[in-house]
């Protein structure tokens, strides 16, 4: 969220609280930003937490190198997949994306990293290209593919159609990353799980870019309505963590 800053001490405290909640994984930050950000990721990675600690990277060898230096358990590489992102943001083409993806995944793999990739802006991408990108990453050794609804425009009817199609081709673990621009992040995450996704990205209080991400507390409540989804996180503890983070959020008056 714009304007919100967590100190390294606060980030470490939040990491410990998340670990106590028994989340599977914490995406601790972006080491390529350097400075305090990189130091905080390294500190969290060194805590010896039960959960996995991962770092977010662009498709740059240097970014990955920064993450490896932090000693994280997992390296996540974000891959722009929509033509809008590839052409307008990167000013490249699809062939370049595939080649760069292969280079980055194999670089990380060769150095012993557990690699996951993110299909950035997947909800505005060509579904066939998503399958090509996912398959290329898995061939190079990536272990999991994240479907990112970067601008929050997915809805249930697309999810129940597109996620199984992707799963049928990739046959790997899938992860969902939703944004809340239309108030659909929790619902989309829920339906993605029903469609076969096993990993859900969420944040405390739904904090995140623009209208935020999938709110962990709301996701727990939604999953409780469904007996065949098991999400063993205590909602009361999530609310305590929300209280803690609200202090940081109130520091920026705008």
């Amino acid at each position, binding site marked *: 969220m714009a304007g919100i*800053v967590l100190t390294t001490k606060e980030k470490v405290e939040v990491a410990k609280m998340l670990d106590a909640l028994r989340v599977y994984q914490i995406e601790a930050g972006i080491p390529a930003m350097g400075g305090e950000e990189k130091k905080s990721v390294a500190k969290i990675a060194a805590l010896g937490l039960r959960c996995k600690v991962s770092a977010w990277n662009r498709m740059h060898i240097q970014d990955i190198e920064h993450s490896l230096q932090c000693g994280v358990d997992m390296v996540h590489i974000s891959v722009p997949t929509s033509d809008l*992102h590839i052409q*307008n943001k990167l000013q490249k083409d699809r062939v370049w994306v595939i080649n760069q993806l292969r280079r980055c995944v194999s670089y990380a793999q060769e150095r012993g990293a557990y690699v996951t990739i993110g299909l950035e802006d997947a909800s505005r991408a060509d579904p066939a290209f998503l399958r090509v990108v996912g398959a290329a990453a898995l061939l190079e050794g990536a272990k999991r593919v994240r479907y990112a609804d970067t601008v929050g425009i997915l809805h249930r009817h697309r999810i129940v159609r597109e996620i199984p199609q992707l799963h049928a081709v990739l046959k790997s673990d899938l992860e969902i990353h939703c944004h809340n*621009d239309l108030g659909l992040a929790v619902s989309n995450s*829920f339906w993605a799980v029903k469609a076969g996704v096993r990993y859900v990205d969420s944040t405390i209080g739904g904090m995140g*870019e623009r209208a935020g991400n999938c709110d962990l507390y709301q996701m727990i*409540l939604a999953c409780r309505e469904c007996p065949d989804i098991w999400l063993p996180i205590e909602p009361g503890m999530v609310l305590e963590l929300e209280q803690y983070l609200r202090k940081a959020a109130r520091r920026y008056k705008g």
Partner: protein
Amino acid sequence: MKGGYLQKQPVHLTDRTLSDPGIMKENLQRENLLHFCMLLQGVGIQKIEISLEVLDILAPVPCNLLLLLRVNSKEELLRGMEQGILDFICTVEVWEGMETDDYLFPDVQMTLEYSVRRWSDLTSISLCKEWQQQGCRCIRLAGLIDPVDIDILDLFISMVAEDGWSVDACPYNNTSQAVSAALDAVIYGACSISGTFCGWGTREHFAPLEEVLTALYLLDEFTIPAGDLALLPRLGSEYEKLTGCAIPLQKPVIGERIFWYESGIHADGISKDPATYEPFPPALVGKTRRLVLGKHSGIRAVREKLKELGVLIAGAEEQLLQQVKHHSMKLQRGLYTDEILEIAGKMHQRIGNHVVAGRDENGCKDCGYHSAGRRTNGRHCLDYKRKSGSC
């Protein structure tokens, strides 16, 4: 992605904020209420559900307002008809307790509200054909909080449509599924969706209509109601007065900070094409984007911000970036505009660069203050800009 695989369904939206008993009574003045109602219609919400208390304040009702009066007895129904109201809603329990043969006119319409918290509740709905002759042609399904068997709604709407009933869906938002359920209901043939502005309610929380409206507009498979979403901020102000509740800063579509951005990656993408990281332009919903400088900023963000502020520090953006990050960590938050200008001003003094307000290195475009080939005191323009916003 463009639609086309789903049949377009005409759909209407009904706002039920003003039928909630928790509305701030001290703010219930005719002018406020009228303004709120006009703005609701302005953004594309066709019908406004009200209580009798609100009707008494609104009367005489302007003829361009489509009102739906919630009634709890035959007496309230008659009072509404005296005021010229022709559209009513009541729970099916209230309807079954009314004696209606002697006073309903042909033009009167009654919507019957059923509580459907679980899908199994649909099986207990029994609709009487005679009720249609008494003006009941629409049923509202209120609740719909169990998301799992939502496809049953498709079957239900088709079945009742064969008997001449239309369906209004009013999902509750207990599990953050209301907007999704509303969109599903539209796809399955519901003729209208009911909710409230900002999802507000004192007993239940409803589908936030601003989210439903924007989703219908954006997702291309639906027929959208005509309206100007740029009126949403004004509607938000009226809502805060009526309910006493502040809109959360990150509330989808209407939150104050939803178009604020800081991260270097987002700043880079937005500077090249805002559509990379925005689902719709801020102006669509009456907002503007705002670049915040702080710990997560990158060099491009610094350049963009300096350009926005009309400040030029030739060749020193990287140093400014480091200063921004340092101060942001020290203050434990993003920086405000005057803080950024102060840092830029101090950097000018330390490194002796030519700093002017405006992009023309030959002098300030605004006031003409000019260096004439020597190092200028660019602080003239910085100070003026900080104090008054212009030279």
